[in-house]
């Protein structure tokens, strides 16, 4: 479904050359929930932008359904790391969610139904008329998620979406994402730098090394599909997987400084 082949990205400009991604190869199956973890600055955002067709790789390619990505592919939605800046401050919450549907030329009735449903799914049934800057950080992020849900994507990319919200909201949003994924059956690539979060959420965790970035480890998360914050995180297997990933990241870090 989603393939990344020998992807390499070098930023070159303003007299500074940064090799953000050295060589990445992995693939994600249809309907799979994969998490990507890696140290800050290792090129996670760069990777998502290449897959989303917002940035051209220096070499290698990303493919969706076998088609190489050359521009933003249809049926792909992104939730950006800077959620505050990805909402239109001049549009109310509902209009933010509706805009992509309008651009797609859907009839008004269908649009309103989708917007209503998506906002309700993220627990924002009552703030339709608010502007983004009138909402808390967690609520803004939920509006951005609602926009992605309403769009009905086949592939959903999320870039550290919960980095800036408090612990309780974060736990709620994690459960929300799991339920959305189970309901919609989307292929989900979720970037985070939080190891616990990656184990809790995904069916699979792809660990990236520090720059120059490669895949350090690809671990299947064999926890039961029904997860909840208390029992899953208390599961001995959870601690085991977490320890394994932690060790990998440490190893990858030392490997790169050698």
């Amino acid at each position, binding site marked *: 479904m989603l393939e990344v082949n020998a992807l390499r990205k070098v930023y070159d400009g303003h007299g500074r050359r940064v090799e953000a991604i050295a060589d990445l190869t992995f693939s994600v199956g249809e309907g799979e929930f994969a998490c990507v973890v890696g140290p800050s600055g290792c090129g996670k955002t760069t990777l998502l*932008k290449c897959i*989303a*067709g*917002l940035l051209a790789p220096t070499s290698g390619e990303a493919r969706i359904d076998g088609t190489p990505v050359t521009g*933003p592919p*249809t049926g*792909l*939605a*992104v939730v*950006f790391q*800077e959620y505050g*800046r*990805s909402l*239109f*401050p*001049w*549009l109310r919450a509902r209009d933010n969610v509706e*805009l*992509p549907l*309008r*651009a*797609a030329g859907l009839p008004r009735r269908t649009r309103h139904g989708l917007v209503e449903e998506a906002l309700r799914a993220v627990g924002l049934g009552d703030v339709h008329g608010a*502007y983004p*800057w*009138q909402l808390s950080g967690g609520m803004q992020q939920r509006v951005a998620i609602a*926009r992605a849900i309403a*769009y009905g994507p086949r592939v959903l990319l999320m870039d550290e979406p919960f980095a800036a919200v408090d612990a309780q909201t974060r736990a709620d949003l994690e459960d929300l994402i799991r339920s959305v994924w189970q309901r919609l059956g989307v292929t989900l690539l979720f970037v985070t730098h939080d190891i616990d979060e990656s184990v809790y959420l995904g069916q699979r965790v792809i660990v990236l090394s520090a720059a120059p970035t490669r895949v350090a480890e690809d671990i299947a998360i064999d926890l039961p599909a029904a997860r909840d914050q208390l029992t899953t995180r208390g599961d001995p297997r959870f601690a085991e997987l977490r320890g394994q990933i932690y060790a990998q990241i440490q190893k990858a870090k030392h490997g790169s400084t050698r």
Partner: protein
Amino acid sequence: MTSALRRAAALLTVPVLLVALWWYSSANSTDFYRPPLSRILVAFRETWFGARLADDVLPSLTRLLLGYAAALLLGVAVGVAVGTSYRLRALVEPILEFLRAIPPPVLVPIIMLVAGIGDLMKVIVIVSGCVWPILLNTVEGVRNVDEILADTCRSYRVRGMARLRHLVLRSASPQIVTGARQALSIGIILMVISEMFAASSGLGFTVVQFQRGFAIPQMWSGVLLLGLLGVLLSLLFRLAERRILRWYHGIRAIEREP
């Protein structure tokens, strides 16, 4: 309610004091060129609340509004084109700087040669002065489109007119409004000046006529009317701005809070 009253009081105190000062200092004036305010007010009523309203005030205002509207359309259209295209900007920026530096009144003789001495000439004079602040501010505003919002539009396939309307124009709207505000005061000045050359009606024309005929109180009343029109137009402008930039002022108000 009380805060609104207090604001109105703060706004009106100085003007009321100045008018009172004018009234008392001129009350016993026998100077031919500085008649008492009471006489000016009588002249005001006799001069402007009659046939002159339709014969002079209305044509002036119509030309102002036509020229201002045309300058808005032209300035925003060209500004968006120049601001969006890097190559176009490099090409025309020096020319724009040169044209902007020419004081519009010196263009009047040239415009008269091309467009005659009718209404068209006066409207063109107004456009030629109003267009620059709008155009240059629009260029500035369009260049400041947020990168993440632009990426959001690309990946949700918001393109063409929808992108122009919901991303480009809205992002630039604070700057466009700033330019439009500057253009409004320039427009009023040029409305008067254009009527001082070869005109047969209009506010500027009438004031000059009064001065030449030594109708001093009437001349003063014309100046007073121009001032009042300026205040009225800037109030209307503020009403429009409050609607258009509601989101912008909302964000600013939140940022100002501790």
